[in-house]
């Protein structure tokens, strides 16, 4: 099995600042594999997903490194070709289903537009495919949903629609950026199971961004721990839960709520650990500057 996505030594900067927001990030994902990206808020998890999908904010640009999608170096492609390749092979499941659907458009075109406009399907085929997808995400009355506007659907329903839309073109890579954080707890579980189910059925490579190590243990095979835009630890999920190598990872794991000992998770991450990991990031920066 070869890696479908390889990110190699990727660094990005915020314009006008000396500091990097992504610091020599490297990882790869095989077909059918799920990689968890964990780390505290602002660690750069979403930034990695955006870099892969070509939707970085205009103030942030990639200064070094490669993103190989299906063997092609995105950085070296013409923008139009890159957009097409990403649109045809990758997809995003966004965080907030309430804002990720166009409010003035019915559901059907929002599922089928990629197929029709980008991949050149004929409308009737795309419609059949949309029905199929809505069945796959366990929506009972696909006809009605397809004719609805987003505001007529519940949050959970909308996330199902977005998942259907993400899987519409049989993507080889799906990036799920905290796909359940905006939903209430009961719906979270269903959506999580659904994503897992579709991922397994289609053998999709997946980047799963989350705060929740509990979710990682259920969904992912491997995970990367991020701090300050730098990958602190790459590990397989079983190894990680046996005992993380890095002190910061251990602290993160200790801060995850456990049913057996709920109080323990209320302790904040030890400041000394944070200082150590911050110092490590800075040291790596210094070394990187010398190298450059």
């Amino acid at each position, binding site marked *: 099995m070869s890696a479908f996505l390889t990110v190699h030594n990727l660094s990005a900067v915020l314009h006008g600042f000396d500091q990097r927001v992504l610091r020599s990030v490297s990882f790869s994902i095989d077909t059918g594999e799920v990689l968890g990206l964990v780390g505290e808020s602002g660690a750069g998890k979403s930034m990695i997903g955006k870099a892969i999908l070509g*939707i970085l904010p205009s103030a942030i640009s990639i200064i070094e490194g490669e993103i190989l999608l299906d063997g092609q170096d995105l950085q070296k492609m013409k923008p139009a070709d890159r957009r097409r390749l990403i649109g045809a092979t990758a997809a995003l499941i966004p965080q907030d289903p309430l*804002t990720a659907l166009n409010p003035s458009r019915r559901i059907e075109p929002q599922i089928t537009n990629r197929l029709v406009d980008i991949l050149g399907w004929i409308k009737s085929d795309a419609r059949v495919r949309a029905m199929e997808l809505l069945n796959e995400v366990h929506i009972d009355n696909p006809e009605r949903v397809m004719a609805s506007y987003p*505001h007529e659907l519940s949050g959970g329903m909308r996330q199902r629609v977005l998942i259907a839309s993400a899987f519409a073109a049989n993507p080889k890579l799906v990036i799920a950026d905290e796909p359940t954080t905006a939903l209430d707890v009961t719906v979270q579980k269903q959506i999580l199971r659904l994503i897992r189910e579709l991922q397994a059925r289609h053998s999709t490579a997946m980047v799963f961004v989350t705060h929740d190590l509990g979710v990682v243990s259920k969904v992912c095979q491997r995970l990367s721990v991020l701090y300050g835009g730098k990958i602190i630890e790459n590990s397989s999920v079983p190894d990680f839960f046996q005992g993380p190598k890095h002190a910061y990872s251990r602290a993160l794991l200790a801060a995850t709520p456990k049913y057996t000992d709920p109080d323990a998770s209320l302790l904040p991450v030890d400041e000394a650990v944070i200082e150590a990991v911050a110092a490590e990031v800075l040291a790596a920066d210094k070394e990187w500057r010398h190298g450059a």
Partner: protein
Amino acid sequence: MKLLRAILVRLATMSVTLIGAAVVVFFVIRVVPGNPIAMMLPPGASEEDIARLTAHYGLDKTIFQQFGIWLSGVFQGDFGTSISLRQPVMPLVLGRLPATLELAIFALVIAVVIGGALALTGVRHRETRTETAVDVANGVGLSIPDFLWALILIVLFGVLMPIFHISGRISPSLDLPFVTQFYVFESLFRLRFDLWWDLLKHMFMPALALAIPLAAIISQLLKQSLKETMHLDYVTLSRTKGYSENHVILSEALPNAVLPTLTLIGVQFTFLIGGTVIIERLFSYEGLGNMAIDAVINRDLPLIQGIVIVFALLFTIINLVVDMTYALLNPRLRHA
């Protein structure tokens, strides 16, 4: 059922607005000094003549009696007789209205085209010098009022580089086959493009003067709301599907970003129509606004009343159209 109620409520508020406008204008123009009869007669007319004419136009009665007479006439479709032109008011007003409507609509089209193009260009090239240039253009457009634009255009294109006509509605030497007063539409309908072109060449300068400030307002607001929309999640999501920047702006962002601009255009369009009064004067354009100024100068009370009522009716209709368009374009309202 809901719809029916909404329509009834709407009609009721429209009638109240019209009656309010009628009452206000009727009393205000009678309170300000100036005697219409004195304006009509040559200097040195006898007391007797003045009294006779005053009685003829009913101006010797009390103000409330006058109002009662006028209002009962209005309900029978009779808006009185113009004192200065000695003709029934309504045919006069309706004869001039098309010229003003055509001018205002042409100005609106110019404003939407220029404003829209500026906004889209600014957003397409946001955070570059092009956007700065658009901002500067908007600032200039906004800080100079329409009548000053009129003077600037008259000097530039009427005097220094005389490419456009700066006076009148159509060249007086032309034979006019028109049966309606909607010359621009009728010339198109009759395939008389020579006349159509002559009309446009006359309308372009006054329409542009009216359009520039509105274009700047449209450009500013539309660019702002487009830029905000471009950051929304559904726009970002459509980028990941493989769409180009142009497609993302035009078909994902624009339909949602245009709604606030649409409401604003409605309000501003009524201001624009108000602006025709002075602009028509400056360009000697024979529309309702020009007639309104003459009516005021001559203290032609019935004519002023007729013009104001027609303007008020026009404004309420525009508001209605804007609200309906808004509801039509916004699915959240459509299903509410």
